[in-house]
């Protein structure tokens, strides 16, 4: 369902503007799979709503960016990965952590800054990491993860492995130098990496049109002779299928791929952003773009998931999210005695382990 382009003739190809490619005919998944996707999307929705609440209750500090509106993109992308595949992502990544298989309790505990969190309370919302799930980081600096992902793919290639590295970024990231440098390197070195631009139309409040000279972002693949595609990010199956094409091409041919998803951001840039730069009409329009409401309707119409069954699922994931919040709340804060545990992996003599008022020399 994705528009695709080979690099060379990209400019000659026609694009369908907003790329609203919807799946028609029979969906390419059975009922159980579809319900599973819906459940994951619902879990992300309820998790993010719970996180927003916890933020207003001052249980969560710092910045808190939510995947509200991005649920179909999250679940579709993660469904295309094998468990051994690596994921690098940015600071809007709670949903990706959940869909990569990490428990809601450990994710929520990280947002709460507790020692039971995925990053032991050292990372927070923007820096989720789980070596076992192969989520190799949420990253807070725009574009910082892109060279890292290219390097991870280089390591896979160097070792002769068949894993694929997926690297997410927002639309604003396509303006930063690291994006260009990394795609160039990945193209030059035939690295098995899939770059995914999650285009929600806004970098904070700046529109794509105001920050990108080529606002059809997937077309940038042409500059690196990299195959690329754009897909409707509100359609979980379309996203999954487009991502599968990208991931399996990277795996089979060790070639990078650039995938763009058009994924609405239902709320502000972060929890504290009321998004006043959006017009009333725009905000109204977003309701129609809600991927969860859309899928609920589709499943109901197809006789796959009734209203009652949906309510039952909702109660189930809400209980899961509530339990996660309770787990986080009950978890201990990291001990101050562990403050110096993670500066260096190889310990060194002479490392200063002093608190602000301590003297440099104790004798």
């Amino acid at each position, binding site marked *: 369902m994705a528009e695709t382009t080979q690099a060379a003739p990209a400019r000659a190809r026609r694009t369908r503007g907003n790329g609203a490619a919807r799946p028609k005919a029979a969906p390419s998944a059975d009922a159980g799979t579809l319900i599973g996707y819906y459940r994951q999307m619902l879990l992300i929705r309820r998790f993010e709503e719970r996180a927003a609440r916890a933020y207003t209750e001052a249980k969560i500090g710092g910045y808190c960016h939510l995947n509200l509106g991005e649920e179909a993109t999250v679940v579709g992308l993660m469904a295309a990965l094998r468990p051994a595949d*690596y994921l*690098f992502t940015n600071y809007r990544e709670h949903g990706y952590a959940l869909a990569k298989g990490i428990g809601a309790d450990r994710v929520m505990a990280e947002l709460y800054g507790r020692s039971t*969190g*995925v*990053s*032991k*309370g*050292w*990372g927070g919302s923007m*820096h989720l*990491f*789980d*070596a076992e799930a192969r989520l*190799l*980081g949420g*990253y807070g*600096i725009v574009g*910082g993860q*892109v*060279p*890292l*992902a*290219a*390097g*991870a*793919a*280089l*390591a*896979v290639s*160097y*070792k002769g492995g068949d894993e694929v590295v997926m690297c997410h970024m927002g639309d604003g990231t396509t303006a930063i*130098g*690291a994006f260009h*440098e*990394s795609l*160039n*390197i990945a193209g*030059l*070195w035939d690295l098995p990496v899939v770059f995914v631009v999650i285009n929600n139309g806004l970098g904070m409040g700046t529109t794509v049109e105001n920050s990108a000279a080529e606002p059809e972002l997937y077309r940038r693949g042409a500059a690196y002779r990299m195959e690329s595609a754009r897909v409707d990010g509100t359609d979980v199956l379309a996203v999954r299928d487009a991502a599968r094409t990208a991931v399996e091409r990277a795996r089979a041919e060790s070639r990078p791929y650039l995938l763009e998803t058009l994924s609405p951001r239902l709320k502000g840039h972060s929890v504290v952003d009321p998004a006043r730069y959006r017009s009333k009409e725009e905000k109204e329009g977003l309701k129609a773009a809600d991927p969860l409401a859309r899928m609920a309707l589709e499943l109901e119409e197809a006789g796959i998931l009734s209203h009652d069954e949906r309510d039952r699922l909702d109660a189930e994931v809400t209980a899961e999210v509530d339990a996660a919040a309770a787990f986080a709340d009950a978890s201990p804060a990291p001990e101050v005695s562990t403050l110096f*545990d*993670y*500066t*260096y*992996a*190889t310990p*060194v*003599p*002479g*490392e*200063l382990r002093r608190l602000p008022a301590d*003297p*440099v*020399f104790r004798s």
Partner: protein
Amino acid sequence: MPDQPSAANVTYRQALRDTLRAEMLRDENVFLMGEEIGLFEGSYKITEGLLKEFGPRRVRDTPIAEEGFVGAAIGAAMLGLRPVVEIMTINFSLLALDQIVNHAAKIYGMFGGQASVPMVIRTPGGGGQQLGATHSQNVELFYSFVPGLKVLAPSTPAEASAMLKAAIRDDDPVLFLENLALYNTKGPLPAPVEEIEPAEIGRAAVTRPGTDITIIGYSRMARVAAEVAETLAAEGVSAEVVDLRSLRPLDRETIVESVRRTGCAVVAEDDWLTYGIGAEIAATIQEGAFDWLDAPVRRVAMAEVPLPYAKSLETAALPSADSLLTAVRATLRATGRPVLETTP
């Protein structure tokens, strides 16, 4: 190019090149990345012959994209490889500052110790080559400031070899600072390169014991300090030389222990004075040896200008043996001790 026998003097360049080769032979996970390191064999020929011997998989020419290839090295290191990156000069490392400071230095701590970054960035600094303002800087301070990084600055071929080995085998990101003026300097190796023991990171060395004054330097200025100590010895002054070798972590104990014995100190640094490495050393001395000091700590550092091209101006701006001698003599006079020499 065969390894030199241990007894012979080798250049700093040769020691680096042979050590890289030995480490690549020892560990398949060690590979090299950088601009012009393969076909061109390195801007300063540190990687001479290595592409031929190891092939393009392990000696990887990169595009001119410091942020991109340093970041790629970090990502590869996160998956267990041991990349050794060459950045043509430290000036260009500024293009990779985000990856070095915001990523390499943070990944181990920020993710609660789940991934380390066993990467080395080799890069030369230094002025004196008439390369002008953008190609002559010593910005080691930028990296020495950052917890999570290790910053090494060896001054001799033997140290360069032992410390490069330690850097490659260390699990943390290491900035390995070379110096354009040191590449052709020679010194003995304690053993054939493959048998040299890795240095312990974070230890300074008293490279010349003395009793009258402590001169603290690193990289090129450690060698200048040794030369100055020799000159002073002929005048009857016993100068102790401390070669820092590691800027982060900093071996404060060795510095303070020395100054407590000599009672005065001069820091010799190739960077700018204001907020420079010497400022940290001087602060360390005042906190750790205040009661032992007979004179204020002096710093010999580069003039605070963008380094000019013209030889006359460049020479005047850079620290030298003469400027260090001047500062040492002034410091000795300031102690009020009986003056041992009469040179003005």
